[in-house]
């Protein structure tokens, strides 16, 4: 089944890598450059999963997660945050805001796919 996954990250290389990995696994990918861009793309279209960085200009990941959860279309969408190992606090904050899970950077494409499989099956 083709899933639509949004990747929100201010780092273009990470976006590219996520997009590349997921597209090759047969998913459709929407890219957003920061939280604000990501929030703007929550226009009711079908999104099955969102992968977001936490540190971003304009709107950070935590605020984006809150935004997603307050949107009637995306209340139950799995949200995976990208954290670094030094960000345990951020991770908790993200979970409190409604994130589903996390991937610790640096990660390998296989790990990304394993998490996608885990939350989407």
């Amino acid at each position: 089944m083709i899933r639509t996954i949004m990747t929100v990250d201010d780092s273009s290389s990470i976006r590219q890598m996520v997009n590349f990995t997921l597209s090759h696994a047969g998913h459709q990918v929407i890219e957003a450059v920061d939280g604000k861009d990501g929030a703007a793309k929550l226009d009711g279209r079908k999104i099955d999963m969102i992968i977001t960085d936490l540190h971003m200009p304009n709107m950070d990941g935590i605020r984006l997660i809150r935004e997603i959860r307050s949107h009637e279309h995306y209340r139950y969408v799995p949200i995976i945050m990208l954290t670094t190992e030094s960000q345990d606090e951020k991770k908790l904050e993200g979970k409190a805001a409604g994130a589903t899970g996390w991937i610790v950077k640096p990660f390998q494409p296989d790990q990304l796919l394993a998490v996608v499989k885990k939350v989407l099956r």
Partner: protein
Amino acid sequence: MNDLHRTAYLDEAAELLVELEQALLQLEGDPTDQEYIGRVFRVLHTIKGSGAMFGFVRVASLTHGVETVYDLVRGGKIAVDKDLVDLTLAARDCIRLMLFSDAEEDPHFEQRTARISASFLQIAEPFQAAPVPGQGYVPASQEMKGKAATWRIRFKPATNILRQGSDPLLLLEELRELGECRIVAQTCTIPPLDELEPDDCHIFWDIILTTDAGLDAIRDVFIFVDDTSDIRIDLIDEGDLADNPETRRKLGEILLERGDISREDLDRVLAERKYIGQMLVAEGLVTPDKVLSAVEEIEHLREKTRLHEARETTSSIRVPAEKLDRLVDLVGELVTVQARLTRTAVHHQINDLLTIAEEVERLTAELRDTSLDIRMLPIGTTFSKFRRIIRDLSQEMGKDIRLVTEGAETELDKTLIEKLNDPLVHLIRNSIDHGIEPSAERIAAGKPPRGTITLAASHSGDSVLVRISDDGRGLDRDAIHAKGVAAGIIPPNAEFSDRQLFPLIFTPGFTTTSEITDISGRGVGMDVVKKTIDAMQGSIDLQSDKGKGTTISIRLPLTLAIIESLLVRIGESHYVLPLNSVDECVEIINEEIADCRGKHIATVRGSQIPYVHLRERFTIVDELPEIHQVVIGRVNGMQVGFLVDDVIGEHQTVIKSLGKMYRQVSSFSGATILGDGTVALILNLEELLAHELRAGCESSAASIES
């Protein structure tokens, strides 16, 4: 990691370094500006995070130290001064050198980097807490497999788990994949309807799991939810239980171990000597669900022991195949009678009878599944036959070919396996004869001298997919096109996609080979293959890359005798459509049909879907209903609808053949008897669609000519 991503990172890092420099200079001018501090931190964070992703380990480690300091700056613990800005600018230059030049050649570079790194560490040191080891999501590694052990898991999700984007059912499914699993839902905590919050999770689950994956793998399943959900995992059997049956646990002990009751209560109730489960429930000490769950655990372990014992005594018997066929026939009759019983019960509204009818329905369904299951055989039994055929034929043709099989254990109804034999032989002969090139030609094309034919079978939904692929020369598009034109099947100047062109080889009498060999090339065969597959309610699909090979996919229903289907009505008559080709049903009103000026197109959620007007096709002329239904499905990979008057519902269809008289009627693949004794015809969707397409071609051809 891919070079592509490394290049992308370098481009990005170059921009980020420029931004970092600007931000630092601005910060120097206004050392307390939170916006500048935030920008510096964010840029550092991205350089570090992405750098680590793409293998720039040194960049990541240097930046990490700098980032730590700026995190403290952000937190107001360290103030920015000129020294810090100088140091950061120096670090920035180091990063640039690491990324964009061969800094290794400079002997001082290493020292300088180490010095900068050390300085940042020193600044941050007084504020550092003991480092917390990070834990990420690491998929359970396969090497950790040990002995199969049995675990008891109680998974009590946080009430808001759905709003966290986690679906507890997916987690249960994931557990199920780890091993043999029994799951009992505990529903005692569901509040009354008026207090029920629909997107709260009120249920929790008791799971008994036997797996060799180990505790870590089980914990990994819950990694995203274990902070908010209540998860208890206990080892109840380390895999030796089957060897000493005396360790079998009793219900009371299990409940006690789980902490669902106390020892005193248990002892007191035990003294009364009744069925322990009933007694505990009657006393109100545990809920029936909890007892049920403990019983499941006993059953699970008992079954394990039984399996173990069964392995030692032989557990299969040989039965003549006709007996099984007879059994399935009888079950078929029973399904029909059961439908009648249900109908009668509903019609007369007799409650007692309804209860019995429901019971019979459940038993019949179980009986049906069991008897169909008995007839299932692993497809591998035919695969082994092909090994010999390929060996003999390739020797005869002087080609070097090996056979690879996958999914030999895939089970399929015995009659289907028998019927599948001839088409597969034919397709394999084709691959050997036309597909795989002689070794010399293969070497010239840069391929390994030995050709490979792959036979693969797998389950997909309620059908079985059988693939025959070869790494030979692929279909010759131009030859097929030329032949199609010559035979008058396609117009000469039209453009065709592979999808449209390749199916031509299924046309009777179609061959592109100029010489006829003993094995193939006479142009009889592919059409017969297609017919056989169609008759089996299956579909055939062809993919080919010139020079790379051809793959033929055959999709078959699991069984032929009884299928799940959708019962529909047109006028006075009933028809059934195989449910596995149906996606959805939508309503359409008369005006919409009329609006399209004779074109049969339905608009569903903005996209246009062509449909077959069955009423027209079958020339049914009685009164038109106001609202029609379009049953939308997928036929030969094409989304298409079928217009009917009314959709009645799902139906267990026992397939009966139509008899010799109706052999020419291709629109129906069979018939079935409904609960009220009337006959419903089974629609052959592919044939109906093909007819429509042919008719469409003719009418558009006619309009061009006129």
